[in-house]
């Protein structure tokens, strides 16, 4: 039953947030309900790791290892972003605008939570479409010409991708004519060996192209840096940390189905598309001028890394892929909280205009530096561990070219990110072109920074056994 509660609670929060009953009601409700949702998601995931089936409606709403991982990540980032929003959005004067933000925020979170919970692919498509549509208003929230432009590019490109993927999902349904199994992710894996390869391959390619646009895979990634530079920072944390992951999750779900067929080399597609994304993003990171775009390109890079890892195959690489999903969501949401704090402190997104941030705003400067180091993959933090395990299993699988290219791109991105952030944090403040207004960061923002940093540090040195079990189960769902 708790799975239905996870779906219903954000809807309740959306309705309450909409009511005009004071400025505090909407943020408090959103924070409270997203915390309850997080607790429910974690308990459901624990039941999955204990080996008990978590089924709310058979063949419609179920939870397995991979979907439990994604569900917990969405609920976690939704809760931290709700806390960050409290202080970040408070500067918005118009109470009506504020209520609309929180109402849309809860609808967006609800659609994100639906994707991993639903196992019927046609409904998954609908849920993914809803994540796009409910996000449009949030991207345009700042109401500037640039924000509207970003929202326009975001919606047109990703809805177009959705319309193309639709044909892929309809074609996928054809698979159920080849045997007696329900139209669910697991049912399709069972059917895989019997289905004629043209059905699976054409469905996969349509879904890869269509949802690739939504997940930010090159070449249809162009909306991503625009939307991420213009949307409010808590929304960027959700978009980058979990929205792209949720869409990639759907693409990853296709891999075991095609591998079960045994006649299609789907791993090759995953590696090629993944590496093109990693490489393009690594070089684009070198020349960005806006620090929110910097983190946005890093998202494109990480989506590529996850897809490549899933394509490398073998239990080790699959474990690395789901481990990378976990670490990327945690770290990238932190990065956007840090970028949002820096934006509050200096009021500019230009890298060149920010120098010596560590002196003007120690909290924002330290957070930005920590976020940069963490997302670039420096040891001993979490992203380093997952990237290292992916490279190691790539070598073990004798995929030397793919592994070598990925290692090279990751190193380029590492230097790109740290070079930009180093100048922003430590550079000479006197050289900076603009005003540095010394403002005190809102309490909720600082609290969020600490809360979001904790798991990144802890996971670098200690892996809780239930989480390890969950990752193992998630890797299993990829390799069946």
């Amino acid at each position: 039953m708790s799975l239905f509660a996870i779906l219903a609670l954000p809807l309740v929060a959306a309705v309450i947030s909409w009511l005009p009953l004071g400025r505090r009601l909407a943020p408090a409700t959103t924070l409270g309900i997203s915390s309850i949702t997080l607790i429910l998601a974690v308990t459901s995931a624990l039941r999955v790791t204990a080996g008990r089936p978590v089924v709310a409606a058979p063949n419609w709403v179920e939870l397995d290892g991979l979907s439990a991982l994604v569900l917990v990540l969405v609920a976690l980032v939704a809760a931290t972003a709700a806390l960050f929003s409290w202080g970040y959005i408070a500067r918005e004067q118009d109470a009506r605008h504020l209520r609309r933000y929180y109402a849309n925020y809860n609808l967006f979170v609800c659609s994100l939570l639906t994707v991993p919970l639903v196992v019927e692919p046609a409904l998954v498509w609908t849920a993914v479409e809803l994540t796009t549509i409910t996000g449009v208003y949030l991207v345009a929230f700042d109401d500037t010409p640039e924000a509207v432009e970003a929202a326009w590019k975001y919606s047109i490109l990703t809805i177009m991708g959705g319309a193309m993927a639709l044909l892929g999902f309809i074609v996928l349904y054809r698979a159920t004519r080849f045997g007696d199994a329900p139209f669910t992710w697991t049912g399709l894996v069972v059917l895989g060996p019997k289905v004629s390869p043209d059905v699976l391959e054409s469905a996969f390619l349509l879904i890869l192209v269509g949802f690739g646009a939504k997940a930010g895979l090159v070449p249809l990634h162009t909306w991503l840096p625009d939307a991420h530079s213009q949307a409010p920072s808590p929304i960027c944390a959700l978009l980058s940390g979990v929205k792209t992951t949720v869409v990639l999750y759907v693409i990853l779900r296709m891999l075991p189905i095609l591998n079960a067929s045994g006649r299609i080399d789907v791993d090759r597609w995953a590696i090629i598309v993944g590496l093109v994304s990693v490489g393009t993003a690594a070089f684009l990171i070198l020349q960005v001028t806006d620090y929110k775009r910097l983190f946005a390109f890093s998202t494109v890079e990480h989506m590529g890394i996850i897809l490549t890892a899933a394509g490398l195959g073998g239990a080790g690489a699959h474990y690395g892929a789901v481990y990378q999903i976990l670490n990327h969501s945690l770290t990238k949401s932190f990065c956007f909280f840090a970028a949002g704090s820096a934006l509050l402190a200096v009021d500019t997104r230009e890298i060149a205009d920010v120098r010596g941030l560590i002196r003007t705003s120690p909290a924002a400067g330290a957070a930005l530096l920590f976020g940069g180091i963490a997302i670039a993959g420096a040891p001993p933090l979490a992203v380093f561990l997952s990237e290292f395990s992916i490279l190691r299993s790539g070598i073990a699988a004798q995929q030397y070219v793919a592994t070598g290219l990925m290692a090279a791109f990751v190193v380029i991105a590492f230097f790109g990110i740290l070079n930009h952030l180093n100048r922003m944090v430590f550079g000479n403040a006197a050289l900076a072109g603009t005003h540095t207004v010394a403002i005190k960061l809102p309490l909720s923002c600082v609290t969020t920074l600490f809360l979001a940093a904790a798991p990144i540090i802890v996971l670098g040195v200690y892996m809780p056994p239930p989480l390890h079990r969950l990752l193992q189960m998630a890797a299993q769902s990829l390799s069946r």
Partner: protein
Amino acid sequence: MANFAPVLASLNGLAAGAFLMSAFGLLATRQMQGCLRFYKLQSLTVIASIVLIAIGMHVPDLLAVALLDFAIKPLLIPWLLRRYVREEIFRRREIDQVLNIPGSLLVALVLTLIAYFLAGLLPPASDAMGNINVPIGLAGLLLGAFTLAVRREAVPQLIGIFGIENGSLFAGIAIAPRLPLVAEMAFPFDMLIVALVIGILTRITHERVGTTEVGALRSLREEAAK
């Protein structure tokens, strides 16, 4: 019933022809109103094909889908666009286009040929009467994407997306006519919400930027240091 099969198949062929025509129309018409009219026509041909397939392949569920599609696509969506997108946008006769019309039509012709070859990669229709739907639907998908790429105005770009969706549905209905009813019902509702959200976004764009010529929106770009 068997005697009717050739009649149904020919009628379906007629719908496919009209579908392809209106996909070209979406691309070639110079007027905003005409663009919307071709979209309505295209939706009606999709609905006609759904009804014919429902009868020919004995899938009564599809009749409900056709009814819902009829309520949403040619009626509700144009009404929503009129309501939320300012009248002056519709009153403009000329639509700016990146490529001129004869050039676009030539590219569209090539895309249609490509669709015919690509259709071989897709699984065939589940019944012979739907064979024509697969290549024509795929052509509709490609033409919709091309319309989206060359149009510079907000509403025609949105209609390009609807063209892609219509193409997906036109091909999909023949490949998998027995899709669960819940899913089939979700698709048109999704498009309705898309029309609503993008319609409002178009109005906001007009208020903030002063134009709905979205091709002119280029302040966000990747550039070397200014």
